[in-house]
């Protein structure tokens, strides 16, 4: 029985390997997905002060850490029976919206688009973000890079760091937003909306 092995699988967040077994006609008989990675958050989060968890669980995934931060912050709010004030909820929502933009731009341009723009048969050395920029031209490439940076910039201002930010506390956020930051966010957000229409 012929076996095709894809090790590791690429252009997504996560570790894995796929073994595909083919029958005599060359058709897929059975594929197996193997996840060789396990870090054990379920165990090592035990014993940590609960208010620390929003800054630990982000490490479940460094590509979507804000989703884990937000889920953990909400869980911790519930543990303390506290309802964040309206301003804090809005700051959290702004932060999470910035994450959505960051994640979608990263997913499309870094992970998925190379297949569509360069084709699934392109060489691995070409079929990636750098190949994509070469194909689209530097001007478009710089627009992609600029707008991919805007969303993490907003996250970093609110959360200290773009990846694994630290702003979430039980009952709210640790930092207010200044008027200047507000204006900057608004400008960047509008620019991202225009970029999305390209």
């Amino acid at each position: 029985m012929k076996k095709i092995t894809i090790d590791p699988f690429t252009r997504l967040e996560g570790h894995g390997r796929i073994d595909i077994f083919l029958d005599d006609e060359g058709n897929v008989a059975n594929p197996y997905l193997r996840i060789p990675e396990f870090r054990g958050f379920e165990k090592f989060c035990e014993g940590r002060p609960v208010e620390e968890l929003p800054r630990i669980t982000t490490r479940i995934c460094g590509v979507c850490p804000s989703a884990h931060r937000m889920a953990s912050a909400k869980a911790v709010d519930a543990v303390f029976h506290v309802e964040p004030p309206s301003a804090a909820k809005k700051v959290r929502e702004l932060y999470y919206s910035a994450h959505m933009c960051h994640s979608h731009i990263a997913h499309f341009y870094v992970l998925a688009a190379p297949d569509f723009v360069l084709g699934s048969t392109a060489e691995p050395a070409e079929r990636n973000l750098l190949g994509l920029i070469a194909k689209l031209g530097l001007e478009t490439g710089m627009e992609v890079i600029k707008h991919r940076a805007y969303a993490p910039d907003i996250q970093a201002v609110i959360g200290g760091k773009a990846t694994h930010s630290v702003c979430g506390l039980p009952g709210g956020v640790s930092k207010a937003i200044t008027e200047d930051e507000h204006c900057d966010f608004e400008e960047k957000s509008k620019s991202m909306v225009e970029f999305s229409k390209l």
Partner: protein
Amino acid sequence: MAKLKLAIYWSASCGGCDVAILDINEKILQVAEIADIVFWPIALDFKRHHVEAMPDKDIDICLFNGAVRTSEQEEIAKLLRAKSKTMVAFGSCAHLGGIPGLSNFSNRVQAFERAYVESQSCDNPDKVFPQSVTNVAEDELELPEWWDTVKALTQVVDVEYYIPGCPPTVPIISQLVDALAAGNLPPVGTVFGSDKALCEECPRTKEEKTIDKIYRPHEIIPDPEKCLLEQGIICIGPATRGGCEARCIKANIPCRGCFGPPPGVTDQGAKMVSAIASILGLENEKDLSAEYVERLMNQAKDPAGTFYRFGLPTAMINRKRI
């Protein structure tokens, strides 16, 4: 100058280090000018067999992120070491053991029991754990061996440089890219970042005040201008290498030490205990009973998990005995 060959790999990691490399933005084009990326699973489709087919020392520089916990991670660390002239432990997990290193408070069986049996979202009455070999109709399928103890990269292979941080900052990654472009790498063994403790670059004011109470971060609204530790909030700054620009502290949240110990400090947690002891309960210290002092120190919750948040595997005592 001939183009460099660059490999980037993730081991027991979250992908945040890989995103940090994307976060250098337009500088990624400079990377593309000076180097061909020959392996980078998050962004390029090169496979393990491509690496295995390379001659030894063919890769000029390998940025390895993530801790080492499984037989497969050790194999790949050794494979990339053999194929690379220069190995960089990139980010807290490769440098110190990182957040996954907190696993060293338990062992393999405890972690599996918790995740695969006790977990509220698991239905596993037969207590099936991941097996290193599983027989299926077509073949024998293998999973890596999962060890009791998490290791940093340097505990598995020789490492030339360390890029600290969870994740590393853009200026520090840029510093490495510039050094590569100029062909001007620092002495082997260099940990990038500052040579001083984080307190040296912290914008908050220190008043050499003593404290008699420790607050958890949510129990107090700290003065934004003053040292967090001197307001009674555990901040690992005194036991942490600078170079991060105090990014968490600027968001009013105390440091948890992701840059590891500063030069000259062997054990980050021991240094932190000493830093707390030197400001806590000093008023009339001679008149305080041992029980009272113990009660003061016990206000610090989960000291091991806080002082060794990012560096348990590389601490002097690197795991719990079970």
